[in-house]
């Protein structure tokens, strides 16, 4: 049997299809304005890519903030539950997960079955998330994909003290006009994101083995800064961004 997980996030929509032997394919598209349409499109594209028909799929679970707009899903579960299940599927020894997505960041503890035991979620603002990094990339006129590698070239990161995204953006602009190196500014931005995420992680008491998931985990600069802030290794899978969709598919398969 094939099972599909669809994760509709604030910026991207992800889908994964699995069977008893493993992951068959994954797909990422922009969510855009219409979450319901994005869910349908990512499903169609994923199936086409894997040469599967809708009738081949035995179970579908939707997740993410747009989870309830996937009308063809059998069930919806929150992304916290799915990230826990996904991380456990990718590495069964993992006991703590930090998921940083477009507008939310979450830290969770999972048991030896991948079930969520405790969690914390950013509730005050979206500082320390993907959207924060996007705004900074725009201010610096640097492609966000280049952020990670650039920041690793810095040995004197700038300090970004504002938590508010808009204030932090104007701080970055001041740093640019002061002539600070772009690498140092980006490294400072990553430290600021890592500080927010680490504070959240401490609220649930994360411990190794820890996995970081979500789109921001693709940024090696944030991962490195987070390792330093937490004082523990942070594992990142090549499936980090689609981890929520994988978790949803795993739970659909179990169902």
């Amino acid at each position, binding site marked *: 049997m094939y099972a599909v997980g669809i994760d509709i996030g604030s910026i991207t929509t992800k889908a994964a299809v699995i069977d008893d032997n493993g992951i068959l394919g994954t797909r990422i598209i922009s969510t855009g304005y219409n979450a319901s349409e994005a869910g349908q499109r990512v499903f169609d594209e994923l199936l086409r890519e894997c040469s599967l028909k809708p009738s081949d799929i035995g179970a579908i679970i939707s997740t993410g*903030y747009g989870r309830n707009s996937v009308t063809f899903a059998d069930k919806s579960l929150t*992304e916290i539950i799915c990230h826990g299940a996904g991380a456990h599927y990718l590495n069964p020894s993992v006991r703590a997960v930090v998921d940083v997505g477009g507008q939310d960041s979450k830290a969770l503890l999972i048991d030896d079955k991948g079930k969520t035991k405790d969690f914390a*979620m950013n509730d005050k603002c979206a500082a320390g998330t993907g959207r924060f990094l996007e705004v900074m990339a725009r201010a610096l006129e640097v492609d966000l994909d280049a952020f990670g590698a650039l920041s690793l070239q810095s040995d004197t990161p700038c300090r970004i003290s504002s938590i508010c995204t808009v204030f932090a953006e104007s701080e970055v602009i001041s740093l640019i006009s002061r002539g600070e190196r772009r690498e140092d500014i980006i490294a400072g931005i990553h430290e600021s994101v890592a500080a927010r995420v680490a504070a959240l992680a401490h609220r649930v008491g994360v411990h190794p083995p820890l996995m970081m998931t979500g789109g921001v985990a693709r940024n090696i600069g944030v991962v490195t800064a987070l390792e330093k802030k937490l004082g523990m290794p942070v594992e990142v899978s090549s499936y980090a961004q689609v981890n929520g969709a994988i978790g949803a598919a795993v739970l659909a398969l179990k169902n």
Partner: protein
Amino acid sequence: MHPATATEKGTFMNELDHFQEAAKNPEGYGKNLKASGRPVIGCLCSYAPEELIHAAGAHPMRLFGTKEAIVNADGHLQTYCCSLAKGVLENTLTGRLSFLDGAVFPHTCDTIQRLSDIWRLNTDYDFFADVVYPVKLNTQSALDYTVDIFERFKKNLESWSGQSLSEADLTRSIEIFNSIRDQLAEIYRMRSKDPACLSGSLLSSVVKGSMILDRDELPERLFRLRKEIEEGRYAVPGNERKKRLIVAGSLCDHPDFFSILEESDGVVVWDDLCTGSRYFDETVDIGVPPLEAIARRYVERRRPCPAKHLSNTARGEALAAMAEEHKASGVIFFLLKFCDPHAFDYPYLKEYLETRNVSVTLVEVENQLPPEGQLKTRLETFIHML
């Protein structure tokens, strides 16, 4: 809508509609009551001895803060004050509470205590009183002291109203409030037994309405409401299958919170809120001198507010017992941001309850609920974990 029944006024209304209307527009209700010639005294928390106000011929009305933007109050209060203090001050400074004859400020937390000074200096109501409770409750001197402060509060009321307050007046009021408390507790018990008999948001409007509606009419209203609930008029089938939860905190003036929980497959079967069971928990003994009897209810209550001290583990024990009694598997702490007495207790209570296999989560709010999407994600995850 629910089927309608005839009321004493000849209009067609469910009893519950009276509670809902008052809960939606407390200021409108207060204004009408005042226009009918009854003085109205605002009360800041569940430690306001409402029996004395009622016995003095006035109407005690709980103040809830505002859902409107805070424009005037920020100039008087620090940013670390809770939204309740800010909302109450905002309401008075903008004239929304102009129907009040005054207010009473029980000293539970420091913010309310300081708000009392700011209120006194910036308003010109006829009546004002502080009721400065002891912090530690479990001593004889705490009881003696509480009786003394009630004597003083009684004198405040007497000199304002120009009438002396007899023991018979007090006893009559105690009986009315006891009936209100008993009946609210009975509705809670009915709902704990069958959570499908009434939705959580409607239950919250019953408690809130009870803090607003005319207390002379309230026992009858609650009696009729209980009958309506028993008849199944407000039944929400399906609630009986949901995960049973307890909500703990100070003030929860967000009926939508209970609806979101029920949509997320959870149902609140009891609470430890000052706009919930702490309002009606335990009655006042009859046959004891009235002021001492009222004082005993406050100092001897098993579930005190966190601003009061009973013992290091009293609140944990009470919550664990509540969870066991009502077969709840989780406790949601619903706290106002910057409410330090509650925030200070939270880490210990979380640990205490979790070691007793009761799951715990925290939702912090201001005068508005957090965005629904995020709140639902947190609540659904928590309920799924149970």
